[in-house]
């Protein structure tokens, strides 16, 4: 009797231990936002292919509801500050794309239900060209475009 009970306890302890361990090494991480790094999208040299791989769509609307803040002239293409904001509803992703770069997709942020449509970072640009900010809202892509004149390229 005593022995039986002990076995049950031991079994329980083992199970709890197992779950704890799984959590500690990240097996039970919240899955929703933890998709793997989208390698194909980042390796693509073509913006349409990159967007298709990343978001499953490549058609976007140029929209005033997306705003992109970049310098008009960047003396150093290795450090170009970019801020992308939007008040559109139900935003899932915000992406920064530089079509003239060897790999156009620079960064993409997935946000949860509490996320605000705001991303600010610093990127590299190989040459003078456009920066695109693409926001996915309610399953539709919205885009803003700004040109940056690059004095010294930063991809070299």
């Amino acid at each position, binding site marked *: 009797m005593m022995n039986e009970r002990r076995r049950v306890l031991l079994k329980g302890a083992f199970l709890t231990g197992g779950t704890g361990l799984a959590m500690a090494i990240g097996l039970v991480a919240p899955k929703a936002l933890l998709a793997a*790094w989208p390698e194909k999208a980042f390796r693509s040299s073509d913006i349409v292919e990159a967007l298709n791989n990343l978001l499953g769509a490549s058609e976007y609307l140029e929209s005033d509801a997306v705003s992109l803040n970049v310098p008009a002239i960047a003396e150093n293409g290795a450090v170009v500050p970019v801020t992308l904001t939007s008040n559109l509803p139900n935003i899932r992703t915000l992406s920064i794309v530089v079509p003239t770069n*060897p*790999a156009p997709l*620079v960064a993409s942020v997935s*946000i*949860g239900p509490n996320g*605000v449509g*705001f991303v600010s*970072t610093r990127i590299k640009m190989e040459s003078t060209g456009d920066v695109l900010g693409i926001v996915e809202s309610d399953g539709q892509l919205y885009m803003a475009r700004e040109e940056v004149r690059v004095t010294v390229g930063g*991809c070299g």
Partner: protein
Amino acid sequence: MASDTIRVRATADAEGVTTLQLLMSHEMETGRRRGPDGDLIPAHFIQEVTCEHNGQVVATAYFSGGVSRNPYLSLKFTGAKQGDSIRVSWTDNQGYDDSAEATIR
């Protein structure tokens, strides 16, 4: 938890929006640059940055080597308040990672 590679600053405003500012120290090599010996320097860049609040992922950023060296990233989210703790972590393409925790001010 202190981190050698991540500096985190998180502030909550009166409207309940938390602004997260991160500065990570990382080479961010694209794999296209050549070193002094003329050989390509292998790609080495942060691929993923995850921000968690109360154990929930609020945002995940995916980077290419096109993000500048020592990446700066700022994001905003709602549903957190001053005193809450947040956790930030990155992983790079060579399997290195780091994480840091901070309190929202």
